[in-house]
């Protein structure tokens, strides 16, 4: 009993509880909005949101994993930067630049055979994303420019640059999308097509999920190991907690700031590759003047996962899950943007975690006091 109480009062449970509290409150707010809009269908609509990806069967779950993949990567990007004291809102720009690099490699470097082609595309994407984050990193470390503003600027510059370069090199003008990559550049299915499909008539309606999800999970595990099991990760976290103290301890905090931004950029760029290297049936880059939403959805994934790489895997899958449900909401005449509203509420309440973390120990303490009083009276 004492061990259980110790665990309950510990930090880990507190963190998870505050995330769950944020999620519940966000969902509740979404229910209220549904009720205000269309009370008759609200319950059914909420049911669809909760059923999420399952609404469209096994293929739906496959799509959940497919769209969770870039979210895990951008979530890792934002979360890794968070742990080191930086706010990487530039995940969107790094994502799209990485995506372009991957598509370009996929379309033009056809001299490489199958496994090397897509591996080269992934490396190109990571390098491009890292390069895109290098500039804000250097500006923060050496010129004291606040990384929020510089990364936001890089987002817009990245979007326009990617659009321009796509139109220049890999454009499919008939559909205003990027071209199909060579088949050798498509990420292998890795057996996922045997699990995630709906039977359609005589054939299979296969989900677009592929081995990208495993690469993403592997990246998360790698980040977890780096942050918690290496000296380098320890130094990065120290810089995040207190820059001056780390410098006093001899850690080169300028180098660490630049390196964490670059790693964060590489993760986001890799996410871009994993989403768009899915063959002709999967996603293509739309050439419009709109910032990549996957970059911004990485922020709630990171916040809900409390910047812990393993937690980010779960929170990204959760966000992808309700987003798939949201798309299905259109059948009930609801606007799918309700999901974005719910996610925004979740982030808003997740910032209250510090406050919430003081409630649970207080409740436990009151229970303990009441028990002690009853023990004295009897």
């Amino acid at each position: 009993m004492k061990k259980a109480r110790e665990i309950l009062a510990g930090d880990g449970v507190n963190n998870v509880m505050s995330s769950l509290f944020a999620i519940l409150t966000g969902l509740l707010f979404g229910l209220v909005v549904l009720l205000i809009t269309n009370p008759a269908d609200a319950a059914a609509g909420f049911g669809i949101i909760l059923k999420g990806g399952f609404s469209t069967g096994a293929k739906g779950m496959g799509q959940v994993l497919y769209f969770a993949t870039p979210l895990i990567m951008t979530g890792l990007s934002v979360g890794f930067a968070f742990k080191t004291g930086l706010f990487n809102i530039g995940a969107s720009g790094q994502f799209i630049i990485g995506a372009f690099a991957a598509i370009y490699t996929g379309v033009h470097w056809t001299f490489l055979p199958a496994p090397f082609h897509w591996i080269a595309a992934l490396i190109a994407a990571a390098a491009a994303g890292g390069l895109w984050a290098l500039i804000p990193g250097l500006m923060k470390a050496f010129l004291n420019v606040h990384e929020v503003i510089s990364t936001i600027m890089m987002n817009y510059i990245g979007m326009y640059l990617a659009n321009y370069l796509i139109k220049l090199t890999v454009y499919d003008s008939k559909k205003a999308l990027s071209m199909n990559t060579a088949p050798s550049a498509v990420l292998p299915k890795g057996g996922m097509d045997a699990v995630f499909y709906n039977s359609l008539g005589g054939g299979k309606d296969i989900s677009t999920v592929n081995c990208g999800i495993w690469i993403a999970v592997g990246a998360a595990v790698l980040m977890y190991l780096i942050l918690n099991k290496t000296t380098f990760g320890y130094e990065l976290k120290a810089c995040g907690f207190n820059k001056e103290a780390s410098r006093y301890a001899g850690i080169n905090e300028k180098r660490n700031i630049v390196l964490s931004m670059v790693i964060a950029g590489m993760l986001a760029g890799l996410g871009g590759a994993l989403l768009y290297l899915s063959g002709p049936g999967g996603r293509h880059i739309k050439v419009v003047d709109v910032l990549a939403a996957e970059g911004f959805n990485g922020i709630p994934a990171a916040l809900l996962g409390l910047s812990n790489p393993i937690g980010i895997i779960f929170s990204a899958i959760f966000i992808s899950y309700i987003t798939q449900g949201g798309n299905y909401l259109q059948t009930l005449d609801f606007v799918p943007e309700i999901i974005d509203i719910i996610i925004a509420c979740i982030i808003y309440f997740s910032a209250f975690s510090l406050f919430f973390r003081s409630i649970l120990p207080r409740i436990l303490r009151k229970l303990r006091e009441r028990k002690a009083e009853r023990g004295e009276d009897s």
Partner: protein
Amino acid sequence: MTLLYLVVQQTMFFSIPLLVVALGGMFTERGGVTNIALDGTMIMGAFSGIFFINQMQGRMSGQSLLLIAILISVSVGVVFSLLLAYSAVNMKADQIIGGTALNMFAPAFAIYVARTLQSNGVQQISFQNTFRISSVPLLGDLPLIGGLFFRNAYITTYLGLLILAVSVFVLYRTRFGLRLRACGEHPQAADSVGINVYRMRYAGVMISGGLAGLGGLIFVVPTSTNFNATVAGYGFLALAVMIFGQWKPLRILFAAFFFGLMKTVASAYSAIPFLAGSFLPGDVYKMIPFIATLIVLAFSSGASRAPRAVGVPYDKGSR
């Protein structure tokens, strides 16, 4: 000559919203709260104002419609920013996270309400622009200045400049301004002489909300005939203008005009002869304001004198 008039008029349309929103950001940061949600607040203000105009333009038109829309935008901005104020001041939550949440909420909310309430179910809200003043009665006929500043104008432009004048006065010549600045530099010292830091910070955030809401409406009205749940990143540009202006109103004016000019060049380059002939494609021109911002920030942030306690939640117990 008409080209010069066009460039100056367009610059005003782009600069005044930047000026107004940056002044709002200045008020909140001088009080000690970082308001990243300026972009979201602009969207909320623009949405409510434009939606009101869209619904009422059958019955009213002209400047009176615009004035009521302005009041609505400001009120909605103030209320929206209360969310950030509560999160930052009462809950002592991370101000950047709260601001990001509001930034994500605003366009989703605008699209949701537009698609639900509009009969055709689209997310763009269109409106008729009956507010352009082709020439101010007496001043529009002055030789050079008339053409530059008093023709093809909107009252929102003059309102923005009025707000600038009021801001300079309030910040530097009133008791409220002095106390607000104190709360941003050293809230513990301000608290020790009896200033209610929480109330001051609330005031700062609410002012920024009102100004941002107004800025959103000012941005949309002259530059297009429909609102599509976005302000093209203006809220963030306004933050950069504020930093470039070192949190001082007159420098912010200069910075806002600089960026307004960059944006005008970016969007009107086809009308300017020697630029249209060059080989740079449209996308590069769209990048120019943001690249210029980066370069300016690179040079101006080294000696940056932000208010010392900005972004740190005020805790009475700490030193």
